[in-house]
């Protein structure tokens, strides 16, 4: 997998600090599962967190604190079972959200052969899996907030570039785009949207209530 489009420093710092909405965290965790480059960069941001914590004014622990904690220590947790990759397409964090492999995804048709599955996350941003048949266009839309799209299978292109497996497209509210799935394997993406999408055509606007976005 040759990844050309990575997580920005801004989002990696937010993920390291634990300050992003859940849907964004999920997309980032999924990209990190594929991308050692970003995983290493995250390590650098975690190191900033460690340095900041080290410089915090110490606040004395209660006197009984160490004894109380020592009393709590039991046997260390058993050596971790390697979370086996249950799915060729979905990385482990997504397998957790879907509750299984690709066959467990509860797709709903949203027209033109495109299917989606909303994943349960907290408010602030919405996460969904998208299934776009090879060669299919996705409704023309623009954004009110940020949209992250991670390619899991296949590829798509839009006005900005081509995005293949592992690539992350970060669209800001100024981007008005119309992604097209490439010929070849059908395109499966994980998308997180900060605010409802605005579609620019009549039909997609009618479809919006079904999209739950």
């Amino acid at each position, binding site marked *: 997998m040759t990844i050309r489009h990575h997580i920005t420093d801004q989002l990696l710092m937010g993920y390291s600090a634990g*300050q992003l909405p859940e849907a964004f965290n999920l997309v980032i965790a999924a990209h990190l599962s594929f991308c050692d480059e970003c995983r290493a960069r995250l*390590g650098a941001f975690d*190191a*900033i967190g460690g340095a900041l914590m080290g410089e915090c004014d110490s606040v004395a622990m209660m006197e009984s604190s160490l004894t109380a904690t020592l009393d709590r*220590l039991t046997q*260390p947790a058993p050596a971790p079972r390697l979370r086996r990759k249950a799915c060729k397409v979905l990385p*482990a964090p997504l397998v957790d959200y879907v509750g299984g492999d690709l066959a467990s995804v509860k797709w709903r048709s949203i027209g033109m052969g495109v299917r989606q599955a909303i994943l349960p996350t907290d408010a602030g941003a919405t996460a969904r899996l998208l299934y776009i048949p090879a060669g299919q266009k996705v409704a023309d839309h623009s954004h009110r907030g940020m949209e992250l799209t991670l390619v899991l299978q296949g590829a798509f292109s839009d006005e900005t570039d081509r995005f293949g497996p592992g690539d992350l497209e970060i669209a800001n509210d100024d981007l008005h785009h119309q992604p097209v799935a490439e010929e070849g394997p059908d395109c499966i993406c994980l998308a997180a949207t900060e605010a409802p999408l605005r579609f620019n055509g009549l039909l997609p606007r009618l479809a919006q209530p079904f999209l739950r976005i």
Partner: protein
Amino acid sequence: MLDTAPFQKADALTASRHYAAASAAVCLRQKGKSVSSETTPEDWSALILRVRDTQDKAAFAALFRHFAPRIKGFLMKSGASATLAEECAQDVMATLWQKAHLFDPARASAATWIFTIARNRRIDALRKSRRPEPEELTWGPEAEPDQHEALELSQDTERLGEALALLPQKQRDLIERAYFHDLSHSEIATETGLPLGTIKSRIRLALERLRHKMS
């Protein structure tokens, strides 16, 4: 910025001797029950490894005395009450004990790793958004990282701390707000002005070695 500055590989033999000496030194100091401010970052890593390998409670106590008050300070600065911060700092230290087998000194210094545990505890305690982790990369217990890599990473991390202290106040405030407060992601600085490239390159090498061993 995360430039990919190449770094010099130190003489592995010399470095691993240095590391062994540091570990020996901390063992001696532990026996004499005087872990002082001389304790270096490598020493903290060595103590976590002792918790991992021999469930050493003296090593744990030394880690607790150093890190627990800082974790408590970190949580209070993030908005937790003293009571909540006290409770969570104890939890973080208990988690360190439980999860010591996941500590990899070639990928994170002791302070970095403890920060990630404290951050996760903070997410629960302050009811922040759930934060799924990427797929784990785990090596078997027999596959030990090169000690000189661990030493170099903790030295890089220490240098990062020094650079952080020297940042212009405005830049520093922005980074602090990102880590301690609810700074929306669009407000987070895109450039830290910190030399993160060397740390990144070093972790990248450790990951490559790990992937190699796993395949």
